[in-house]
């Protein structure tokens, strides 16, 4: 097969891809492309992870380092198998927030920051350029192989020419299908379907070569295993840290590579496709790596020494004369390279146009407002096309500069380590609300700088950029800055070393920066939306006080997403607002949804800025915050008031309960009182009634008659006294008593009381010298108290010769009079009740009273402003009457006057 035939086949294949892409675009445009959204298409589109590095490089990798190549596929397998953790979240965020690229994700998460968008875009370009160069290199190398087989020996000039043509071809395809529609969320159906076809081609090609090797060049699987055991590969020993480190690196890169983000998140048509892809993509990866070791083993056995193991997939069938298989293998490698380059350039061009060109353009020419200057749509498309060309040109440049000498796999790992610098900001952004813009910028830039110093610059080869002396001794002789032994830690694998330090410092600074800085309101809103993506899909931050009219917004939108799409969106919005025709009202919700729609085309930061220009206000102004704070304060105050009210109600309820308890107790007391009264009244009445009955019957001797009349009289007197007492007490208790103030000497009052009490049996002991106090109070009432106390002593004193000592004294400036008898006193439990109504101790018949005396005494004394109390431990019963204060002081003054 001649070289020209190969060229023709390759061109036919490319033409076929163009046709497939065109057909898919047309079907999608007609709305017939249901099969374009099959989960299997999504899964196959993920296969751009398997680039030429996989197709050719994996075998070379296996030939050099044995099983280690498989780590590059185990990492993504773990990510997809664990889709429920991260990928599902990323896809949901990407869909609800209309994320267009990984730079857009980081920028949108950290407050729609333009700076972050630029940083991530630049990092992605720097990291992706060697990778694109790698693809160009692999395709040109495969051309070279065929050229050599066809008898031509390619020199540098031919290789470069081939690389240029490949780059131009790829740029054409990408521009044609990758910039067709501006809205990245509208998905590039043509590109996706072409990639899916290429995915099938490369899988079939690699499997075909593998089957040929195992069953054609060896004797089946068992023999193959024996051959593996016998091959030089079996001597290889695996470093555990490198094994684990590379699995982590590939897993992280799978999430962070811009092209993987493009197919995984941006081109995702349906979240449920993840369910299929979660197992189908690992299956694809496994099939891709299944025959890598057999091919490497057989290649090492058959091919001459010095043959490039990176090209075994191609040279092995060729050396055995299987032209067709070699052609298929070539197409597989070609597919791997082209699909990767196409998607990578689309992703990078989206990032460049949205995060670098548009912000610059807006800042320069569009100062008066996006609607005044030229067609944004035109600018965006042009920016994308130019950046596609630019990215490919950079790749070609790198290819020329590096000379294409280094092993493919080494560049791949360096590139991977570069893109995973986004990982801390990305995971921190979607799982941790505390991540801030400052932290992300710090972490990203520092991690990137370390990566450039430790991995990227040395990857050009010794003395290419960094002189050997610097690598060995560090810059300016600072040995702790040696690119492969930072801080003097030597002996670590260079890739692991660079990855470890860059990610460690990156994550550390991201965390410290986030913890120490304070996020803007927009950052906090976005953070909450990203982290709580599954909790609620609330609307984005509201645009406050919009001054833009719907016409302004429509004009601007038309310039970005095109007239048809913009008008359709506005019509839908108007319908949602209940308007049958015309433009929608510019509500906050409408502006927020419009911003999301636009961010699907030009990225979150740019869309935010554009809407901001029209609505002439930041999303969250200080006034809004103050209003918000006011509202919060009002709510707080209201809740405080409610709380106070509820506390007051609690207090009232408690008071009511207490009052109720008191009433209940009083009611019990009242019942007891009434039953006492009934008893007290009934007893005399009963005897009066029965004796008067007997008297009415007549026929009795005069002595009995007299006795009975006496009893009736006594009982009637007792009744009268009881009623008097009751009346007295009730008057006193109700406070209706009127006091008749008189003046008099205590001694005179006591004389009166002793006479009135008429206690003949009682011997009264007095000390008249102490009784000179002059009183000014209701003397009659006071006398009543004294009489009561003296009568009580006469009644209750149980001594054989009852005595009552009456002694007045001055205690703390108040005159007191003690009435002490020589009896046994009152038992302690009874002391508490002696002043209660109807409390009679011991035998009531002997007392002959209703038990109201002491109660009346206490009432009287309290009315007069004094008191009466029982004093314990005075030998007998002792009552102390404390005379009213004013009266006491007056008495003292009078006493001194009298004494003079």
């Amino acid at each position, binding site marked *: 097969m001649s070289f020209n035939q190969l060229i023709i086949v390759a061109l036919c294949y490319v033409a076929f891809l163009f046709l497939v892409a065109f057909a898919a675009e047309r079907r999608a445009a007609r709305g017939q492309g249901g099969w374009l959204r099959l989960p299997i298409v999504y899964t196959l589109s993920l296969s751009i992870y398997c680039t030429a590095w996989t197709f050719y490089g994996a075998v070379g990798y296996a030939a050099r380092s*044995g*099983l280690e190549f*498989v780590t590059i596929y*185990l990492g993504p*397998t*773990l*990510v*997809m*198998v*664990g*889709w*429920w*953790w991260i990928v*599902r979240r990323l896809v949901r965020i990407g869909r609800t927030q209309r994320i267009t690229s990984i730079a857009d994700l980081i920028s949108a998460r950290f407050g729609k920051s333009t700076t972050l968008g630029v940083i991530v875009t630049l990092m992605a370009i720097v990291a992706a350029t060697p990778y694109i160069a790698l693809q160009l290199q692999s395709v040109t190398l495969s051309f070279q192989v065929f050229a050599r087989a066809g008898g031509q020996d390619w020199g540098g000039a031919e290789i470069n020419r081939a690389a240029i043509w490949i780059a131009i071809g790829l740029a054409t395809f990408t521009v044609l299908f990758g910039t067709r529609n501006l809205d990245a969320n509208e998905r590039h159906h043509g590109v996706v379907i072409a990639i899916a076809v290429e995915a099938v081609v490369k899988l079939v090609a690699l499997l075909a070569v593998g089957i040929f090797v195992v069953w054609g060049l060896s004797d089946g699987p068992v023999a193959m*295993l*024996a051959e*593996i*055991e016998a*091959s030089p*590969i*079996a001597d*290889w*020993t*695996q470093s*555990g840290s490198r*094994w*684990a480190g590379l*699995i982590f690196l590939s897993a992280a890169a799978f999430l962070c590579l811009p092209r993987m983000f493009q197919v995984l998140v941006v081109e995702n048509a349906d*979240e*449920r496709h*993840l*369910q*299929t892809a*979660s*197992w*189908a993509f*690992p*299956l694809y990866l*496994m099939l891709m790596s*299944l025959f890598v*070791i057999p091919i490497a083993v057989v290649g090492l056995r058959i091919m001459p020494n010095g043959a490039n193991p990176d090209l075994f997939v191609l040279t092995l069938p060729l050396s055995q004369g299987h032209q067709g298989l070699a052609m298929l293998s070539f197409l597989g490698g070609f597919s791997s390279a082209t699909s990767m380059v196409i998607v990578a350039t689309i992703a990078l061009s989206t990032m460049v146009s949205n995060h670098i060109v548009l912000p610059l353009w807006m800042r320069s020419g569009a100062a008066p407002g996006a609607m005044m200057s030229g067609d944004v749509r035109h600018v965006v498309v042009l920016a994308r096309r130019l950046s596609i060309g630019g990215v490919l040109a950079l790749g070609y440049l790198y290819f020329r500069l590096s000379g294409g000498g280094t092993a493919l796999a080494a560049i791949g790992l360096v590139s991977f380590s570069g893109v995973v610098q986004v990982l801390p900001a990305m995971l921190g952004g979607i799982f941790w609300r505390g991540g801030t813009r400052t932290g992300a910028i710090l972490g990203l830039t520092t991690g990137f700088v370390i990566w450039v110093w430790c991995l990227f610059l040395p990857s050009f080869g010794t003395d290419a950029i960094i002189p050997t002396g610097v690598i060995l001794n560090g810059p300016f002789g600072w040995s702790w800055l040696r690119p492969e032994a930072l801080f003097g830690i030597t002996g670590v694998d260079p890739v692991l070393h660079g990855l470890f330090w860059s990610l460690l410092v990156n994550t550390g600074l991201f965390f410290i920066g986030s913890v120490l800085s304070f996020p803007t309101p927009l950052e906090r809103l976005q953070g909450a939306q990203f982290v709580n993506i*599954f909790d609620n899909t609330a609307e984005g931050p509201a645009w406050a006080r919009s001054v833009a009219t719907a016409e302004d917004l429509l004009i601007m939108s038309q310039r970005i997403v095109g007239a048809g799409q913009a008008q359709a969106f506005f019509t839908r919005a108007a319908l949602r607002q209940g308007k049958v025709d015309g433009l929608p009202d510019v509500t906050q919700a409408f502006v927020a949804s419009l911003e999301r729609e636009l961010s699907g085309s030009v990225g979150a930061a740019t869309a935010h800025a554009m809407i901001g220009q029209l609505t002439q206000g930041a999303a969250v102004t200080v006034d809004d915050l103050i209003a918000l704070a006011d509202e919060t304060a009002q709510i707080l105050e209201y809740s405080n008031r409610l709380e106070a009210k509820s506390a007051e109600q609690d207090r009232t309820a408690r008071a009511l309960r207490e009052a109720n308890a008191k009433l209940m107790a009083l009611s019990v007391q009242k019942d007891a009182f009434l039953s006492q009264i009934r008893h007290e009244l009934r007893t005399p009445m009963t005897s009066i009634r029965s004796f008067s009955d007997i008297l009415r019957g007549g026929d009795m001797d005069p002595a009995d008659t007299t006795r009975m009349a006496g009893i009736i009289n006594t009982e009637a007197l007792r009744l009268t006294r009881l009623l008097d007492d009751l009346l007295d007490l009730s008057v006193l208790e109700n406070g209706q008593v009127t006091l008749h103030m008189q003046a008099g000497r205590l001694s005179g009052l006591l004389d009166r009381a002793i006479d009135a009490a008429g206690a003949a049996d009682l011997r009264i002991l007095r000390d008249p010298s102490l009784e000179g106090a002059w009183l000014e109070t209701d003397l009659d009432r006071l006398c009543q108290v004294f009489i009561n106390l003296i009568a009580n002593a006469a009644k209750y004193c149980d001594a054989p010769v009852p005595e009552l000592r009456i002694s007045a004294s001055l205690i703390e400036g108040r005159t007191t009079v003690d009435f002490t008898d020589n009896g046994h006193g009152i038992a302690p439990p009874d002391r508490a009740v002696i002043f209660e109504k109807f409390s009679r101790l011991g035998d009531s018949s002997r007392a002959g009273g209703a038990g109201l005396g002491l109660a009346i005494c206490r009432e009287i004394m309290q009315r007069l402003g004094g008191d009466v109390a029982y004093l314990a431990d005075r030998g007998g019963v002792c009552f102390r009457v404390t005379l009213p204060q004013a009266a006491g002081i007056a008495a003292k003054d009078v006493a001194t006057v009298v004494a003079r």
Partner: protein
Amino acid sequence: MPDPDAPLRPVQGRPGLFLARDSYRQRRLRDAARMLPVLGVVIWLVPLLWQRDSEGFGGMAAAVVFVFVGWTVLILLTALIAQRLTTDGEAAVDSDTAP
């Protein structure tokens, strides 16, 4: 054990002890889906252990077979679980694992 809810519901046609049996199964399936990458890590770190230990068994061929068999098992498990998971049912929120 007597069911404390028993007096409240009619005895005949008694539903199972778990009323939300399906959503409970869903939540446990999600737990299983979360554990799959852990299983993968365990599977693929095993060859590191044995390669250092013995020369006889831990050969290259055995490692290759182990890695690929483990891969297949993981893919089968993922397929099995993913097919049974419902993603759109956000109504069946993890009531017992949600924060």
